[in-house]
C-alpha cells in the first residue's frame, strides 16, 4: 500500500518500434523515485507513456488504485500527475507570470494560484524580478526554474522531471538538487529521470534502472548505489 502511481507490465513505443517491454514500477507517496538508464533506454518514453503523450500498447497505469491508462494528458494533469518535460518546453512568447498562470490551468490548481505563485517566487526570487519578461528571454538556468515553478503551479500529487539538469552549469545543477531536496522535505511525491546518476542517487529513496526498454534493477537507493553493475555502468567507479 501507499503506492500512488503504478505501472503494471507496460509496453509502448513509437510507430512500429517498441521501446518499452513489459515494465512495472511503483511510486510511493511522499517519496522520491528515480529512473536511471543509458541514452535510448526508454526513460523519456516511460514518462511520455505515463502522461499519454504516446499511447501505451499494453499494460495498465494506476493512479491511487484507479485505472488511468487511457486518459488524455490534460485529464491526468487535473488528477495531479504533472510532468516537467525535457527541454523545458516553456511558452517562450508569453511572460513568466503567464507561464505560471498556464501551469495552474486545472480547476483545482486555479483556486490556489495566488498562494502558489508566492511559493514559486519564494523558491526562485529571480523569477519574481523578471515576472513580466518573456520566458524566451531567460537564461537556460532561469528557464529550468520557470519550468519547475510552472509544474509546481499545477498542485501536483506526483511531480515528474525529465532530465532537469540537462545543459545546466554545475553550480546550477547543485541549486536544482537543492530545490528537489526542499520539495522532498515538503513530502511531495516525485519521479525523477536524470542522467546525473550520482546526484540523483544521493537524493532519492527508491531507484529503477532501465536497460534497453526493460526494467533491470530496482531497489532502495542506498542498496542500488552499492551494486557493482550500477557503479560500473552509471557511476564510473
Amino acid at each position: 500500500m501507499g503506492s500512488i502511481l503504478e505501472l503494471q507490465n507496460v509496453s509502448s513505443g513509437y510507430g512500429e518500434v517498441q521501446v518499452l517491454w513489459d515494465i512495472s514500477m511503483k511510486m510511493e507517496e511522499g517519496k522520491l523515485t528515480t529512473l536511471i538508464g543509458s541514452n535510448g533506454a526508454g526513460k523519456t518514453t516511460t514518462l511520455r507513456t505515463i502522461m499519454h503523450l504516446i499511447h501505451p500498447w499494453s499494460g495498465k497505469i494506476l493512479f491511487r488504485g484507479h485505472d488511468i491508462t487511457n486518459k488524455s494528458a490534460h485529464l491526468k494533469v487535473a488528477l495531479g500527475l504533472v510532468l516537467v518535460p525535457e527541454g523545458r518546453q516553456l511558452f517562450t512568447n508569453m511572460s513568466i507570470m503567464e507561464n505560471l498562470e498556464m501551469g495552474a490551468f486545472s480547476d483545482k490548481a486555479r483556486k490556489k494560484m495566488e498562494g502558489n505563485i508566492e511559493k514559486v517566487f519564494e523558491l526562485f526570487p529571480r523569477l519574481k524580478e523578471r515576472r513580466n519578461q518573456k520566458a524566451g528571454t531567460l537564461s537556460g538556468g532561469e528557464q529550468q526554474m520557470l519550468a519547475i515553478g510552472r509544474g509546481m503551479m499545477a498542485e501536483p500529487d506526483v511531480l515528474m522531471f525529465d532530465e532537469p539538469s540537462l545543459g545546466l552549469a554545475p553550480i546550477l545543477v547543485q541549486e536544482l538538487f537543492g530545490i528537489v531536496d526542499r520539495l522532498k522535505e515538503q513530502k511531495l511525491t516525485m519521479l525523477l529521470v536524470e542522467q546525473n546518476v550520482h546526484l540523483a542517487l544521493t537524493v532519492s529513496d527508491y531507484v529503477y534502472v532501465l536497460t534497453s526498454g526493460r526494467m533491470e534493477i530496482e531497489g532502495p537507493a542506498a542498496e542500488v548505489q552499492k551494486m557493482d553493475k550500477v557503479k560500473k555502468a552509471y557511476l564510473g567507479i
Partner: protein
Amino acid sequence: MSINTLAASIIDGLLIGFVYGIAAMGLTLIWGVMEVINLSHGALIALGMFGALLAVQSFGLYPYLAFILVAAFGLVLGIIVYSIAIHRILDAPDLTTLLSTFAVSMIIIGAGTAAFTTSPRNIEFSLGSVNVGSSIILGTKVVAAIIAIITTVLLYLFLYRTRTGKSIRAVANNRAAAELMGIPSTKILALSFGIGTLLAMGSGALIATLFPFTILSGSTYELKSFVIGVLGGLGNPAGSLVGGLILGFIEGLIPNFMDTSWTPVIEFALFVLILLVKPQGLFGSEE
C-alpha cells in the same frame, strides 16, 4: 486634383483598411495557432456577406445586428468545420490541410451558387455621408471601421486578459506543453478555428454593407488577407491591422495617380517584395 480629394480618398482607403484588417486577422490567427493555411477563408467571407443579406432582406434585421448574428454563427460554424475537416488531419503534411480547406471552400461556393446564383447582390442601406472638401465619405464606411476597431480591441482583450485567450496563445506557442499543463488542446484548437471563422464571416458582413458582392467575391478578400498577413507577419493579429491599413492606404492613394486596375499590381508587387526582403513580415511574428 486637390489636396482635399487626395485626403478624402486616403481616409476612405484607411477606413476599408480596418475591415481588411479583421478579415486578415481571421486567417493569421488560424495560421498562428495551428499552422493551417485556411483556403476556405474567402468562401467564409462570402458566406458572411450572404448571411448578412439574408438577415437584412428576409428578417428585416438592422445590418449591424446582422453582423453580430453572422459573427456568432461563424464561431459555431468554424468549430464544426474544424471538427469535421481539420482536426483529424492536423498533423498530416501541409498539403492535406490545404486540400481539405480548399474542399470546404468549394462546398460553400457550390452550395452558394446553387442557392443565390452568381449575380451581384447588395444590401440597401445608407447612413448618409460626411463631406471632406469636395469629396464625400460614406457613413457606412465610418461605422464599419469603428466596428472593426472594436472587434480588434475585443480580440486583444480576449487573447491577453482572459484565461481561455491565454491558453489559445499557449497552444499556439507549444501545443504539447499546453496539453501537459492540463489545457484541453483539442477544444482550444476548435475554438481558435471558430474565432478565425467568426472574423472572416464578420468582415464579410461588414463588407456587404459597403459594396455589391457575389458568392465568388470572397477570393479577392482572401488574397488581400494573404497580402496583409505577410505584411504584418503571419500569426501576428496586431500586424494584421497595420497591414490592413497599409493596403487600405494604397487603395486610397493609387486611383489618384493611375488607373484603379493598377492597384492589385502594386499590392502584389509589395507582397513579393516583402516576401523577398523580410519574409517574417514588417512586424515579424513573435517566433
